[in-house]
């Protein structure tokens, strides 16, 4: 038996709860999130899938903060110009942040949205948490 929903309900699913994945400080102050699978998501998705997403995010943030030859050069050049180049060019970190935003959008479209979940980009939350919004189950015609 099909349930009837208002058009608004169909287009804007109600949020049932939010899960917050906190930061993992075991490696110091670098940006890294815990990969432990939250229990609230057990009914919605694969543990492995989730861990893969978190691991990729952590790798991307590590890349953003990496101390390498390129960042030394950038730092030295910036110092010589009294850091005015920061006003003109996009920093390495910002470039990687764009990559991260794209990755999250991708993951949302492919994996999370079909399961009624939504990942929020951590930069929107000050890099404190990864917020996962769980939407209400709106299965039509489930007859259960």
């Amino acid at each position, binding site marked *: 038996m099909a349930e009837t929903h208002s058009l608004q309900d169909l287009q804007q699913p109600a949020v049932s709860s939010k899960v917050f994945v906190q930061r993992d*400080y075991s490696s110091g102050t670098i940006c890294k999130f815990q990969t432990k699978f939250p229990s609230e998501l057990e009914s919605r998705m*694969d543990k492995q899938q989730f861990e893969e997403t978190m691991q990729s995010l952590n790798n991307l943030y590590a890349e953003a903060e990496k101390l390498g030859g390129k960042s030394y050069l950038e730092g030295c050049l910036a110092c010589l110009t009294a850091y005015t180049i920061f006003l003109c060019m996009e920093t390495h970190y910002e470039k990687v942040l764009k990559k991260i*935003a794209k990755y999250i*959008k991708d993951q949302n479209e492919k994996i999370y949205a079909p399961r*009624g979940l*939504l990942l929020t980009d951590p930069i929107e939350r000050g890099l404190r948490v990864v917020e996962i919004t769980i939407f209400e189950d*709106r299965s039509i*015609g489930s007859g259960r």
Partner: protein
Amino acid sequence: MKSREYQQIDPKALPTPTQSPPSHQHQAVGDDGRTPRRKWEVFPGKNRFFCDGRIMMARQSGVFPLTLGLILVTSGLFFIFDCPFLVKHLTSCIPAIGGVLFVFVLITLLQTSFTDPGILPRATPEEAADIERQIDDTGNASYRPPPRTKEVLINQQVIKLKYCFTCKMFRPPRTSHCSLCDNCVERFDHHCPWVGNCVGKRNYRFFYTFIVSLSFLTAFIFGCVTTHLALRAKGGKGLMFALQESPGSAVELAICFFSVWSILGLSGFHTYLVASNLTTNEDIKGSWSGKSGEAVTNPYSHKNIFINCCSVLCVPMPPSLIDRRGFLPADEPAQTSGVDLELPNPSTKSDINVCVQGPKGLLESAALTPLLATSCPQGKPQTALPCPENTSALNSDPSLELSQRCGGTHHNSKTYGSTSPPLPTKGRLQKHKRASSHTPRSTFDDHVSPSSHDGNHRSTDRGHRGAKFATLQ
């Protein structure tokens, strides 16, 4: 996993946090009913914003105008009075070098003052509720609320993360809440009244470059003025004659003489901090000096001076986490967090109730937030030991010195005892003479830190007081 049919949610139809919610929701309007409001207008911390959110400073500008004024006046006098003479008698490189140094100093000073030091935005209500719930779950059933600390293991060291009652989150390591700015700042170094801003993760490199180039500039001007006066006084004419001929040089000499020692000392001190990957805050509190008897070392140090320097000065510039220029959505009242975009949530009302109306949380925040927010009580300032820098709860004595010299003009009503006495000050006033007798802190030995580890600061024989380090934690 249960096999259920989930309705495919079209991500594009979802009101994602990155875009404004669709259809009936408009951007928040300003007073005139037309312009959308930006997030900096509802920022909860004590900061001032200029140029529509592009520039920010602490609310109390401290002695920043004085710093700027002194640099401009001294350099101006140098170019007007000394350079013509020196160009004629020595070389024209002098104004060129002076000019480059002056521009460097000015740019780095403005960058230090106007950049976001690494402020952490406050937790959203849902996050705060989630954390409260976790704390309550792990706490015991006794009447006393559980301590709000969390322990993490970093590099085999146990680090305690403290819960910030104002920002409603567990502070990351090395983060401290500045009570003057009412913000948690990452890798908090100190609140510098001379630049009118906190010094933290994002602007430490600007600050360091500023003080190093300022020491070069001051030493350079001092050297040039001395040479100028020596050349003028040659031939038995005497110093008084030279000073009469070039009165500006007298002013420069005075300013530079008193400031060069303190600025050089400060640069040396910060070079030591950079090389050991320490912050002023940690150094003052003696977090890693092993005074409590345990073998503690700095877990953030890479054990290599070069790598430490690079990790402080050359690491990619982190982004500003407070979205100052983003727009507020229309249904967003000016919350305490001010930077989040939340969906209206009837089902999470219970969570919000826990966050806002939970008796424990309310009582605690009522009891403790005033302690944090008002920082130190007004203690009698230390006159004998002026200090160059602040940690979050303390104001440096330059304000006191100013008031003593100018007769009671306090730029800040909260004056506190000084922090570390061995540090020579940045003060350019006569009281500085006393400080110059102190050993500069550029040594790499384990110095005697006057502060204690725990929150109750005990005055040492150097007479520290009023330092409520609890507010730093």
